[in-house]
């Protein structure tokens, strides 16, 4: 199988901090996989995603599509869709929804070529799929939290990414919208072999089709495997305490 993400002995320390936020991470992700990364607040989930995306300086081997993110970070990010956690803008922000979604394609298109008709077709199709096409001409700051979250997901999808990094993408979405997003993700994996990493601290937000869960706790991967296996593990109990029932 084709390896999309390869981490070996990776540690990331924020500037000015002494302790690394994630420590000695080893992770192999294959093409088309959907992996949910869970862990309590402060476990290092966001740090892990940003390390994979080459946005944070780290130690160890970090490769995406067989290329080191240290040397090829920007070029790789043109193929990686990223939805940051809790991204919200001020009410007066002077950008329209459709323009924000279109920005997702900017890196992929590259400099000196404008956004063309064909690009807009893709941008509109993504907005339709997420049900935000009727918001296209609204200022983004006037949208609700959940609507803004959909815009950020649309922005990542407009890139036609080969790898998707989603940081708590469901936190403001209602149940129906979560299902819509999950269906889109399933479609992308099946049709285009897109690889998806979803981060969530909320165990009820684990996507349905998920076959592999990675548990982070205090900056380390403490469990990695099929959902049942992870939920039954000692490490899971340590990280989340005795929660039952939440996992339906």
């Amino acid at each position, binding site marked *: 199988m084709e390896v999309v993400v390869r981490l070996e002995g990776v540690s990331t320390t924020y500037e000015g901090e002494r302790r690394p936020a994630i420590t000695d991470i080893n992770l192999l992700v294959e093409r088309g996989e959907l992996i949910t990364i869970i862990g309590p607040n402060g476990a290092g989930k966001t740090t892990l995603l940003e390390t994979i995306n080459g946005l944070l300086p780290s130690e160890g081997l970090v490769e995406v599509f067989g290329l080191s993110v240290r040397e090829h970070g*920007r070029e*790789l990010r043109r*193929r990686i869709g990223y939805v940051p956690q809790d991204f919200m803008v001020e009410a007066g922000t*002077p950008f329209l929804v459709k323009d924000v979604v279109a920005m997702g394609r900017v890196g992929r298109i590259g400099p000196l070529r404008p956004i063309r008709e064909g690009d807009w077709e893709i941008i509109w199709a993504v907005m339709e799929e997420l049900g935000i096409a009727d918001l296209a001409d609204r*200022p983004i700051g006037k949208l609700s939290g959940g609507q803004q979250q959909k815009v950020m997901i649309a922005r990542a999808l407009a890139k036609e990414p080969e790898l998707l990094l989603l940081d708590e993408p469901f936190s403001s979405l209602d149940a129906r919208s979560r299902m819509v997003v999950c269906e889109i993700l399933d479609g992308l994996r099946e049709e285009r072999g897109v690889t998806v990493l979803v981060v969530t601290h909320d165990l009820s937000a684990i996507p349905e089709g998920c076959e592999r869960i990675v548990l982070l706790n205090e900056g380390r991967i403490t469990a990695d495997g099929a959902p049942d296996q992870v939920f039954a593990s000692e490490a899971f109990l340590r990280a989340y305490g005795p929660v039952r029932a939440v996992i339906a």
Partner: protein
Amino acid sequence: MIALPSTLLLRAIAGGVLAGALCSLVGVFAVRLRMSSIGFCMSHSAFAGAALGVLLALDPLLMAMLAALATAALLGPISEKAKLPANVIAGVMFPMTMALAFIFLMLLPGPVIGLTVLSLLWGSVLTVSPSDVAFLAILLALTTSFIVLFWKELNAVLFDPRLAEADGVNSRAYMNAIIFLLGGVVALSLKLVGGLLVYALVVNSASTALQLSYDMKKIFLLSPFIGMLAFLSGFGLSLWLDLPVGSSIVLTSSIMLATSIALSPKRKRG
């Protein structure tokens, strides 16, 4: 009302309109990216540079340009070394450049401070030379092409530099280009509006445009016209009441900003 020779008047108007358009174009970047203290710092170091130029009998415009660009070049690396935001470093450097400027002015020989120096402080349309106008026109052409050619990248950086970086855009390179542009524009406009007030033209017109629309493209189209209008009305006011040009422009552009805030669609239910 003072009578100016018509060639001087035309030259002043051409220079002012160009400077107004330029300042307010780059002003949109400066305001949106919160580079205000960087801009203030550069306008004051340009002023210090011009003062030094007068002291050393070198071309004040060239010296102003060099000082502004040197500041632009220094801010990034210093803020990285000091691990402080460039805004903070700029805030510290700004009084320092002012202090230097006053020292240079004090060191000028003779009791009479010449017209050049006064014009550096308050701005003067009398000292605008044909080459100043040509430089302003060239810089406006460069700025416009930069914005048009890299519109989609600049748009992404203006929305959120970090997010643009995550989409594979070299945000830092664009931010640096913007800082340099800002330095050049400030230094070139210095003569007209004066070192103490030039930055108000940058901030006021762009802030006015930002009040009036939610669409970045419209804001960029609107802002230079507001800048030109600010110059023309301020210039008219200064001729009429015999006030310093820079002060008049700042007054009219401030009134325009206040009006736009009062009328802004952003404050109404939309």
